[in-house]
């Protein structure tokens, strides 16, 4: 029993990974995203969609900030989801008078955001409107990045700020600039300290893992909806494991 458990614990990571991957592929290819399942409403994404349309109509600009996480680190996950949101925003607002501008605090993320913008304009056959300086690196340290992202919020007629990526407490500088500029701020992060600050200072905070559901709520494709269903199933597996494990530990069965 002990050897099985120790073997299991060595390869637990692989098993967990295979479980997650299998569930995603199952939902993608079987198309079994059952109609019976729908997603709970998240206020922030409703506001987000309406704000994108208002920005285009009012001739204002969208500001998408991707944080300062590097993709070589654990914080890169939130940067990837920020790029997904950027792609959706750029697609919706590219024909606005003032196309969207994106800021970030990491070199690789800045290049990926330039790529994302350029491909969006290319796919809409409006590549001549693409301006490489609309994707900006504003600073290389956390507070330099936040301070550098404030002027675009104040100057560029921004109507909505979407903060999606890895932040620290410096995210309050961005929400403050948005507040003073009277523009809507929708914010989410993988750092829970930043989530606490966003909860108090932004108009529409994204709590916990709601940021990672952006792809599914903004209609980025079946892969996003499938991975959301994977998260729900794995969540219940973890809940059951925690409760069972705690009971067994309490009873002393498990050492």
């Amino acid at each position, binding site marked *: 029993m002990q050897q099985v458990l120790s073997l299991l614990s060595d390869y637990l990571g692989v098993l967990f990974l295979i479980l997650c991957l299998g569930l995603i592929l199952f939902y993608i290819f079987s198309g079994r995203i059952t109609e019976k399942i729908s997603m709970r409403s998240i206020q922030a994404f409703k506001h987000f969609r309406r704000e994108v349309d208002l920005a285009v109509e009012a001739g204002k600009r969208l500001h998408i900030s991707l944080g300062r996480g590097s*993709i070589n680190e654990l914080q890169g996950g939130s940067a990837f989801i920020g790029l997904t949101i950027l792609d959706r925003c750029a697609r919706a607002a590219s024909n606005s008078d003032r196309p969207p501008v994106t800021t970030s605090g990491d070199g690789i993320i800045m290049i990926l955001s330039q790529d994302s913008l350029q491909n969006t304009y290319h796919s809409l056959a409006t590549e001549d409107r693409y301006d490489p300086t609309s994707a900006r690196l504003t*600073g290389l340290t956390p507070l330099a990045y936040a301070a*550098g992202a404030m002027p675009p919020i104040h100057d560029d007629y921004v109507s909505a700020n979407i903060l999606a990526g890895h932040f620290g407490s410096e995210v309050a500088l961005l929400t403050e600039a948005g507040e003073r500029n009277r523009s809507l701020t929708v914010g989410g992060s993988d750092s829970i300290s930043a989530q606490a600050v966003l*909860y108090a200072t932004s108009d529409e905070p994204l709590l916990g893992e709601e940021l990672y559901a952006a792809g599914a709520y903004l209609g980025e494709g079946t892969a996003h909806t499938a991975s*959301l269903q994977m998260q729900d199933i794995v*969540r219940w597996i973890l809940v059951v494991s925690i409760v069972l494990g705690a009971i067994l530990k309490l009873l002393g069965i498990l050492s």
Partner: protein
Amino acid sequence: MLEQLAQLADPIGAVIGFLLTVMVLSYIIGDNFLFRLAVHIFIGVASGYAAVLILYNVLWYQVLVPVLQILSGDKFTDLTSYVISVVPAVILGFWMFTKASPRTARWGTPVLAFLAGVGAATVVVGAIRGTIFPQVGASVNILNIQSSPPELNKLVGWFINGLIILVGTVTTLIYFNFGIKRQEEGVPVQRSVFMGYLSTVGQGFIVITLGVLFTGVYIATLTSLIDRIRFLWDVILRFI
């Protein structure tokens, strides 16, 4: 504290620090010319220093110094590992420079695909081994009988606290459940009653956590504000 030491050594630095502090604190009144000037100076200095340091540590020491050692005939331990682990990276690095211009940007995409692949793998494994397993393990061990305090009164407190942490962790996870079973057509989508209660409890725990973290951040910023007031006063005292 650090500034007191700086003042002893460098009055000019202290005066510049004083001016920059006042210019930045003026943002409390509103966005103004002084604040922007100070912020742009700071961004230039901070980004410049970070660029020099990272290039120094990575490009200078890991890429160029071994080459200089080879050229100067110095015994260099492992040429093969250098060729394997550094030369391809430098080639990929210069290839990535095609991203500098929109026209050639398309050619640099393979390098970014590689970086995204490696980054995604790190992120996935880091999340599994660095967060999920440790946090689940800690939650499971919260009521581990072997780590229970021997005294009876402490035991009760330990058990109640453990139970609350267990319930809090589980209900917080349940609150974020995205999928909702649709009863029938036309009925607005809602959670089941039992799930509703669990989610509400979870939401309570989440809000308490965010409250505690918000307070921590606020205390840190308040301390910084006190430090700035003391620094300004120390510089004033020094020059009066």
